[in-house]
């Protein structure tokens, strides 16, 4: 039976990709950001997940406004990275887990989530930066898991509600746990936290709100579903809506989680950057009882 080991949140901004490429880990600007990652590396080295469900938001590489799905789930054997317009070096393709993707899609459509299944999905920095952060070396890394990308729409309003995002995660959890194969799964919620790139309010960051979200998401995620989407934009900034990915991830972890690691630093580029590792408790307890 498949198990969900835990969930990890991280920023996914392109600047992090640069910093990794240039090994700026000890640089004074970057050091407090990268400080959040060693405990996660240790945890991943210990638990060695077989599959990573990478919940991110496409920023205009894999999807366009011609057909903008609310929730897109990759169902491919591999996922290509590609130039996003800045001439960045293209990363090698990421290995998928298509049978598990289809199992998840089957389960979630039956559960009344109206999924867009993607047999081709070019993945952008929202997906690739977290992969680089958690599995340095990517395909060269012997612990590199198979990946399932899930993208939620934060480009075009209406975006999903925070409640729908959390419920998405709950349904995702049901689907994964019903997979008969004995695989260990980790779920990523990438993006955020507060930031705004556009408009006269560009550069807006909201440390108080970020702190509130990082606090509540551990043991009271339902509380966060009271935030309207417009209030989310107001408090977290126009692109802070990426917090929806965190909600989706959190829903997939079950009711109780054990907070293993938490780091917050601002600014990283224009954002407040939050890094969290939450271990699934319910699963652990099930294991212990067996």
């Amino acid at each position, binding site marked *: 039976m498949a198990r969900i080991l835990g969930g990890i949140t991280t920023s996914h901004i392109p600047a992090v990709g640069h910093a990794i490429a240039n090994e700026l880990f000890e640089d004074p600007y970057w050091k407090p950001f990268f400080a959040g990652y060693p405990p996660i590396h240790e945890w991943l080295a210990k638990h060695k997940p077989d599959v990573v469900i990478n919940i991110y938001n496409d920023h205009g590489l894999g999807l366009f*406004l011609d057909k903008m799905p609310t929730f897109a789930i990759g169902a491919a054997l591999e996922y290509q990275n590609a130039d996003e317009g800045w001439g960045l070096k293209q990363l090698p393709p990421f290995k998928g887990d298509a049978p598990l993707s289809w199992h998840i899609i089957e389960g979630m459509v039956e559960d009344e989530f109206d999924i867009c299944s993607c047999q081709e999905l070019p993945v952008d920095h929202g997906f690739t930066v977290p992969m680089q952060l958690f599995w340095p070396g990517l395909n060269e890394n012997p612990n590199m898991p198979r990946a399932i990308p899930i993208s939620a729409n934060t480009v075009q309003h209406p975006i999903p509600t925070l409640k729908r995002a959390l419920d998405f995660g709950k349904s995702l959890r049901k689907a994964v746990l019903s997979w008969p194969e004995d695989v260990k799964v980790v779920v990523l919620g990438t993006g955020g936290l507060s930031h705004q790139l556009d408009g006269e309010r560009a550069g807006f960051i909201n440390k108080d*709100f970020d702190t509130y979200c990082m606090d509540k998401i551990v043991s009271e995620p339902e509380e966060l579903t009271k935030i309207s989407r417009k209030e989310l934009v107001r408090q977290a900034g126009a692109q802070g809506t990426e917090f929806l990915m965190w909600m989706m991830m959190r829903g997939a972890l079950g009711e109780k989680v054990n907070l293993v690691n938490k780091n917050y630093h601002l600014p990283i580029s224009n954002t407040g950057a939050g890094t969290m590792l939450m271990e699934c408790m319910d699963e652990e307890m099930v294991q212990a009882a067996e």
Partner: protein
Amino acid sequence: MELKDLEHDTPIEGTTLFDGEMAMKGYGLNKMSFSFNEANARAEYVLDPEAYMDKFKLSEAQKQACRDKDVLALIREGGNIYYLAKFAGIFRLSVQDIGAQQTGMSVEEFKQKLLDQAK
């Protein structure tokens, strides 16, 4: 943490919600910007911006905003920042450059503003 539930029509200061209305207005502009994922498209734009903009049926206001690289105008004309970032990429403008331009600050001032929010 005090959380409100804003009315649909309450504006958020300094923020344009990219909703259906804006998406319709900016469709050609965003489609052009989306095309800049491809290096060839970026080269084609640089070679002849006017011809390239015509290909996507941009309005005169959108064209002028592109010529001026005026981000606030681009947003007013329906541009979405995720796609505009690819337009900005042609000119190697970073999100700090764009932020400075939109807030009427120097890039240094804008970066300081970001740092100040850590307090």
